[in-house]
Protein backbone atom coordinates (compact mmCIF):
# COMPACT_ATOMS: atom_id res chain seq x y z
CA UNK A 1 0.00 0.00 0.00
CA UNK A 2 1.40 3.41 -0.97
CA UNK A 3 2.17 5.74 1.89
CA UNK A 4 0.06 8.88 2.16
CA UNK A 5 1.62 12.23 1.39
CA UNK A 6 2.50 14.69 4.12
CA UNK A 7 2.91 18.45 3.92
CA UNK A 8 1.82 18.87 0.29
CA UNK A 9 1.84 22.63 -0.35
CA UNK A 10 -1.62 23.88 -1.29
CA UNK A 11 -0.91 27.62 -1.32
CA UNK A 12 1.46 30.17 0.12
CA UNK A 13 1.31 33.91 0.70
CA UNK A 14 3.92 36.51 1.57
CA UNK A 15 2.58 39.73 3.05
CA UNK A 16 3.39 42.96 1.28
CA UNK A 17 2.99 45.05 4.39
CA UNK A 18 -0.35 46.64 3.57
CA UNK A 19 -2.81 43.95 4.66
CA UNK A 20 -4.13 42.95 8.06
CA UNK A 21 -5.74 39.68 7.01
CA UNK A 22 -5.53 37.03 4.35
CA UNK A 23 -7.86 34.27 3.17
CA UNK A 24 -6.88 30.89 1.78
CA UNK A 25 -9.86 30.07 -0.40
CA UNK A 26 -11.03 27.16 -2.54
CA UNK A 27 -9.27 24.64 -0.34
CA UNK A 28 -9.67 21.21 -1.95
CA UNK A 29 -11.43 18.55 0.09
CA UNK A 30 -9.06 15.82 -1.03
CA UNK A 31 -6.74 15.84 1.99
CA UNK A 32 -7.29 14.47 5.48
CA UNK A 33 -5.80 17.25 7.59
CA UNK A 34 -4.50 20.76 6.99
CA UNK A 35 -1.43 22.45 8.46
CA UNK A 36 -0.97 26.23 8.29
CA UNK A 37 2.59 27.34 9.04
CA UNK A 38 3.37 31.02 9.40
CA UNK A 39 6.22 33.38 10.27
CA UNK A 40 4.59 36.59 11.45
CA UNK A 41 5.41 40.06 12.69
CA UNK A 42 2.95 42.89 13.31
CA UNK A 43 3.52 46.40 11.98
CA UNK A 44 2.71 47.94 15.36
CA UNK A 45 1.47 47.14 18.83
CA UNK A 46 1.28 43.59 20.11
CA UNK A 47 -1.75 42.07 18.42
CA UNK A 48 -2.85 38.48 18.61
CA UNK A 49 -3.73 36.60 15.43
CA UNK A 50 -7.24 35.27 14.83
CA UNK A 51 -8.57 32.57 12.52
CA UNK A 52 -12.02 31.76 11.18
CA UNK A 53 -13.38 29.44 8.54
CA UNK A 54 -15.60 29.68 5.45
CA UNK A 55 -16.06 33.42 5.85
CA UNK A 56 -17.95 32.74 9.08
CA UNK A 57 -16.95 35.24 11.76
CA UNK A 58 -20.01 34.60 13.95
CA UNK A 59 -19.84 33.48 17.58
CA UNK A 60 -19.40 29.79 16.82
CA UNK A 61 -15.84 29.66 18.15
CA UNK A 62 -14.13 28.81 21.44
CA UNK A 63 -10.62 28.05 22.58
CA UNK A 64 -8.53 26.87 25.51
CA UNK A 65 -4.94 28.05 25.69
CA UNK A 66 -1.91 27.06 27.70
CA UNK A 67 1.09 29.36 28.03
CA UNK A 68 4.47 29.62 29.68
CA UNK A 69 6.21 32.98 29.95
CA UNK A 70 9.46 31.83 31.47
CA UNK A 71 8.22 32.43 35.00
CA UNK A 72 4.80 30.86 35.31
CA UNK A 73 2.36 28.62 33.47
CA UNK A 74 -1.14 29.92 32.77
CA UNK A 75 -4.31 28.91 31.01
CA UNK A 76 -7.05 30.88 29.27
CA UNK A 77 -10.47 29.90 28.03
CA UNK A 78 -12.98 31.83 25.90
CA UNK A 79 -16.33 30.52 24.68
CA UNK A 80 -18.99 31.71 22.23
CA UNK A 81 -16.59 34.14 20.61
CA UNK A 82 -16.58 35.74 17.18
CA UNK A 83 -14.18 34.55 14.53
CA UNK A 84 -12.16 37.73 14.87
CA UNK A 85 -11.53 36.87 18.53
CA UNK A 86 -10.65 33.23 17.88
CA UNK A 87 -6.99 33.60 18.85
CA UNK A 88 -4.32 31.34 17.43
CA UNK A 89 -1.38 33.17 18.92
CA UNK A 90 -0.18 35.40 21.69
CA UNK A 91 1.36 38.78 20.92
CA UNK A 92 2.93 39.15 17.50
CA UNK A 93 5.70 41.65 17.68
CA UNK A 94 9.24 40.64 18.44
CA UNK A 95 11.70 42.90 20.11
CA UNK A 96 13.68 43.61 16.95
CA UNK A 97 12.84 44.39 13.33
CA UNK A 98 13.98 40.93 12.26
CA UNK A 99 12.23 39.01 15.04
CA UNK A 100 9.27 37.08 13.60
CA UNK A 101 7.08 34.67 15.55
CA UNK A 102 6.33 31.11 14.41
CA UNK A 103 2.86 29.62 14.29
CA UNK A 104 1.70 26.15 13.32
CA UNK A 105 -2.03 25.37 13.16
CA UNK A 106 -3.17 21.78 12.57
CA UNK A 107 -6.78 21.29 11.49
CA UNK A 108 -7.77 17.67 11.70
CA UNK A 109 -10.41 16.02 9.52
CA UNK A 110 -11.30 19.39 8.01
CA UNK A 111 -13.42 18.11 5.11
CA UNK A 112 -15.83 15.87 6.96
CA UNK A 113 -19.48 16.91 7.28
CA UNK A 114 -20.35 15.10 10.50
CA UNK A 115 -18.06 16.66 13.10
CA UNK A 116 -17.45 20.08 14.52
CA UNK A 117 -13.97 21.27 13.58
CA UNK A 118 -11.08 21.30 16.04
CA UNK A 119 -7.55 22.55 15.61
CA UNK A 120 -4.30 22.56 17.56
CA UNK A 121 -2.00 25.55 17.50
CA UNK A 122 1.60 25.99 18.61
CA UNK A 123 2.80 29.58 18.74
CA UNK A 124 6.40 30.48 19.45
CA UNK A 125 7.66 33.84 20.61
CA UNK A 126 10.78 33.27 22.65
CA UNK A 127 10.88 36.88 23.79
CA UNK A 128 7.36 36.56 25.19
CA UNK A 129 5.72 33.12 25.59
CA UNK A 130 5.40 29.57 24.34
CA UNK A 131 1.73 28.81 23.70
CA UNK A 132 -0.46 25.83 22.84
CA UNK A 133 -4.13 26.40 21.94
CA UNK A 134 -7.02 24.10 21.17
CA UNK A 135 -9.70 25.84 19.03
CA UNK A 136 -13.24 24.68 18.22
CA UNK A 137 -15.60 25.77 15.43
CA UNK A 138 -19.08 24.53 16.14
CA UNK A 139 -20.04 23.70 12.59
CA UNK A 140 -20.10 20.42 10.71
CA UNK A 141 -19.51 22.14 7.37
CA UNK A 142 -16.41 21.14 5.46
CA UNK A 143 -13.72 23.80 5.60
CA UNK A 144 -13.12 25.40 2.22
CA UNK A 145 -11.48 28.65 3.31
CA UNK A 146 -9.34 29.89 6.20
CA UNK A 147 -9.00 33.57 7.10
CA UNK A 148 -6.19 34.73 9.37
CA UNK A 149 -5.64 38.27 10.55
CA UNK A 150 -4.24 40.49 13.26
CA UNK A 151 -6.22 42.04 16.07
CA UNK A 152 -7.36 45.65 15.61
CA UNK A 153 -6.72 45.43 11.86
CA UNK A 154 -3.01 45.93 12.38
CA UNK A 155 -1.01 45.06 9.25
CA UNK A 156 1.36 42.17 8.85
CA UNK A 157 4.94 43.31 8.33
CA UNK A 158 6.18 42.75 4.78
CA UNK A 159 7.87 39.40 4.61
CA UNK A 160 5.45 37.65 6.95
CA UNK A 161 4.86 34.26 5.33
CA UNK A 162 1.97 31.80 5.39
CA UNK A 163 1.92 28.32 3.86
CA UNK A 164 -1.06 25.97 3.80
CA UNK A 165 -0.21 22.27 3.52
CA UNK A 166 -2.42 19.26 3.04
CA UNK A 167 -1.81 15.86 4.63
CA UNK A 168 -3.38 12.80 3.05
CA UNK A 169 -3.92 9.69 5.13
CA UNK A 170 -3.57 7.43 2.10
Amino acid at each position, binding site marked *: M*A*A*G*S*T*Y*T*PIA*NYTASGSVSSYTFSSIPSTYTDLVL*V*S*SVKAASGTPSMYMYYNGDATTLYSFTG*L*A*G*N*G*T*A*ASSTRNTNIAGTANWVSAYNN*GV*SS*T*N*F*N*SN*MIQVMNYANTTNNKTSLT*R*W*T*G*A*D*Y*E*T*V*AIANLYRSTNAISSITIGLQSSINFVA*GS*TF*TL*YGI*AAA
Partner: protein
Amino acid sequence: MANTYTLIAAVNVGAGGASSIDFNSISSSYTDLVLSLSVRTTQATTADDLLMRVNGDSTAGRYAYKDLYGNGSGSGSGGSTSASFNYVGRATGSTATNSTFASNQIYFTNYAGAITKSITFDGVTENNASGAFGDFLANSYNQTTAISSITVYPQSGASFVQYSTAYLYGVKNA
Protein backbone atom coordinates in the same frame (compact mmCIF):
# COMPACT_ATOMS: atom_id res chain seq x y z
CA MET B 1 5.63 11.05 -6.21
CA ALA B 2 3.73 12.47 -3.28
CA ASN B 3 5.20 15.50 -1.57
CA THR B 4 6.41 14.80 1.91
CA TYR B 5 9.03 15.66 4.43
CA THR B 6 12.32 15.21 2.54
CA LEU B 7 14.92 13.38 4.60
CA ILE B 8 18.12 15.43 4.63
CA ALA B 9 20.18 13.29 7.01
CA ALA B 10 19.81 10.60 9.68
CA VAL B 11 21.81 9.77 12.81
CA ASN B 12 21.61 6.34 14.40
CA VAL B 13 23.77 6.15 17.51
CA GLY B 14 25.89 2.99 17.61
CA ALA B 15 27.29 0.85 20.37
CA GLY B 16 29.93 3.38 21.31
CA GLY B 17 27.39 6.10 22.10
CA ALA B 18 27.69 9.74 21.02
CA SER B 19 28.46 12.90 22.94
CA SER B 20 26.36 14.97 20.53
CA ILE B 21 24.11 14.67 17.51
CA ASP B 22 25.31 16.83 14.64
CA PHE B 23 23.96 17.90 11.27
CA ASN B 24 26.28 19.90 9.01
CA SER B 25 26.18 21.47 5.57
CA ILE B 26 22.40 21.83 5.66
CA SER B 27 21.06 23.02 2.30
CA SER B 28 19.23 26.36 2.30
CA SER B 29 16.84 25.19 -0.42
CA TYR B 30 13.95 24.26 1.87
CA THR B 31 11.38 26.49 3.54
CA ASP B 32 11.41 24.93 7.01
CA LEU B 33 13.31 22.16 8.83
CA VAL B 34 11.96 19.44 11.12
CA LEU B 35 14.24 17.52 13.50
CA SER B 36 12.75 14.42 15.09
CA LEU B 37 14.62 12.85 18.00
CA SER B 38 14.28 9.58 19.90
CA VAL B 39 16.93 9.87 22.57
CA ARG B 40 18.27 8.42 25.82
CA THR B 41 21.52 9.24 27.63
CA THR B 42 23.90 7.64 30.08
CA GLN B 43 23.19 10.26 32.76
CA ALA B 44 21.98 8.76 36.05
CA THR B 45 18.63 10.51 36.04
CA THR B 46 15.17 9.91 34.63
CA ALA B 47 15.23 13.03 32.41
CA ASP B 48 18.43 14.66 31.12
CA ASP B 49 18.26 18.27 29.84
CA LEU B 50 19.15 18.79 26.19
CA LEU B 51 20.75 21.86 24.64
CA MET B 52 21.11 22.96 21.04
CA ARG B 53 23.38 25.28 19.12
CA VAL B 54 23.22 26.25 15.49
CA ASN B 55 26.01 27.18 13.09
CA GLY B 56 28.55 26.22 15.75
CA ASP B 57 27.68 29.44 17.55
CA SER B 58 28.25 29.45 21.30
CA THR B 59 28.17 33.25 21.66
CA ALA B 60 26.47 34.37 24.83
CA GLY B 61 23.28 36.33 24.35
CA ARG B 62 22.36 34.99 20.93
CA TYR B 63 19.79 32.50 22.16
CA ALA B 64 16.58 32.77 24.16
CA TYR B 65 13.91 30.32 25.26
CA LYS B 66 10.67 29.99 27.16
CA ASP B 67 9.61 26.58 28.51
CA LEU B 68 6.19 25.30 29.57
CA TYR B 69 6.38 21.92 31.29
CA GLY B 70 4.45 19.40 33.30
CA ASN B 71 5.72 16.37 35.16
CA GLY B 72 2.64 14.60 36.36
CA SER B 73 2.55 16.33 39.71
CA GLY B 74 2.72 19.95 38.65
CA SER B 75 3.44 22.41 35.87
CA GLY B 76 5.65 25.42 35.48
CA SER B 77 7.59 27.68 33.19
CA GLY B 78 11.21 28.66 32.92
CA GLY B 79 13.51 30.29 30.44
CA SER B 80 16.24 32.69 29.58
CA THR B 81 16.26 35.88 27.54
CA SER B 82 20.00 35.78 26.92
CA ALA B 83 21.84 32.48 26.67
CA SER B 84 24.60 30.76 24.76
CA PHE B 85 22.35 27.86 23.77
CA ASN B 86 18.74 26.88 23.10
CA TYR B 87 17.00 24.52 25.53
CA VAL B 88 15.37 21.65 23.67
CA GLY B 89 13.69 19.60 26.34
CA ARG B 90 14.99 16.34 27.68
CA ALA B 91 16.19 12.87 26.89
CA THR B 92 15.40 9.94 29.14
CA GLY B 93 18.34 9.09 31.40
CA SER B 94 19.79 5.80 32.55
CA THR B 95 17.49 5.41 35.57
CA ALA B 96 14.30 5.76 33.51
CA THR B 97 12.32 2.66 32.58
CA ASN B 98 14.49 0.34 30.48
CA SER B 99 14.40 0.70 26.71
CA THR B 100 12.44 3.96 26.97
CA PHE B 101 13.52 6.91 24.82
CA ALA B 102 12.24 10.49 24.78
CA SER B 103 10.26 11.65 21.73
CA ASN B 104 11.06 15.19 20.62
CA GLN B 105 10.31 17.31 17.58
CA ILE B 106 11.96 20.63 16.71
CA TYR B 107 10.44 22.81 13.95
CA PHE B 108 12.61 25.52 12.41
CA THR B 109 10.37 28.03 10.62
CA ASN B 110 11.97 29.95 7.73
CA TYR B 111 15.41 28.73 8.80
CA ALA B 112 17.18 30.24 5.80
CA GLY B 113 15.41 33.60 5.78
CA ALA B 114 17.18 36.85 6.66
CA ILE B 115 15.34 37.07 9.97
CA THR B 116 16.07 35.99 13.51
CA LYS B 117 15.21 32.33 13.89
CA SER B 118 12.08 31.19 15.71
CA ILE B 119 12.20 27.52 16.71
CA THR B 120 9.35 25.45 18.16
CA PHE B 121 9.92 22.39 20.37
CA ASP B 122 7.47 19.76 21.58
CA GLY B 123 8.71 16.74 23.50
CA VAL B 124 8.05 14.13 26.13
CA THR B 125 10.01 11.72 28.24
CA GLU B 126 8.37 8.83 30.01
CA ASN B 127 9.10 6.73 33.06
CA ASN B 128 6.98 4.13 34.79
CA ALA B 129 7.38 6.11 38.00
CA SER B 130 7.91 9.78 38.74
CA GLY B 131 10.33 11.96 36.84
CA ALA B 132 8.77 12.11 33.36
CA PHE B 133 8.17 15.42 31.60
CA GLY B 134 6.24 17.03 28.80
CA ASP B 135 7.71 20.26 27.41
CA PHE B 136 6.51 22.96 25.01
CA LEU B 137 9.28 25.40 24.17
CA ALA B 138 9.75 28.64 22.27
CA ASN B 139 13.34 29.12 21.20
CA SER B 140 15.03 31.87 19.23
CA TYR B 141 18.44 32.52 17.72
CA ASN B 142 18.93 36.23 17.10
CA GLN B 143 21.17 36.05 14.06
CA THR B 144 19.81 36.54 10.52
CA THR B 145 22.14 34.11 8.80
CA ALA B 146 20.72 30.86 7.48
CA ILE B 147 20.98 27.82 9.71
CA SER B 148 23.53 25.48 8.12
CA SER B 149 24.39 23.25 11.07
CA ILE B 150 22.62 21.94 14.17
CA THR B 151 24.14 20.32 17.27
CA VAL B 152 22.11 18.75 20.07
CA TYR B 153 23.86 17.57 23.23
CA PRO B 154 23.10 16.67 26.86
CA GLN B 155 23.71 19.51 29.29
CA SER B 156 25.04 16.92 31.75
CA GLY B 157 27.96 16.02 29.50
CA ALA B 158 26.72 12.44 29.31
CA SER B 159 26.44 10.51 26.05
CA PHE B 160 23.51 9.48 23.91
CA VAL B 161 23.10 5.71 24.09
CA GLN B 162 22.90 3.20 21.27
CA TYR B 163 19.57 3.18 19.37
CA SER B 164 19.07 6.90 19.89
CA THR B 165 18.00 8.36 16.53
CA ALA B 166 17.67 11.75 14.92
CA TYR B 167 16.14 12.56 11.54
CA LEU B 168 16.42 15.95 9.86
CA TYR B 169 13.75 16.73 7.26
CA GLY B 170 13.25 19.62 4.86
CA VAL B 171 9.79 20.97 4.04
CA LYS B 172 9.16 23.05 0.92
CA ASN B 173 6.26 25.48 0.53
CA ALA B 174 6.00 24.94 -3.23
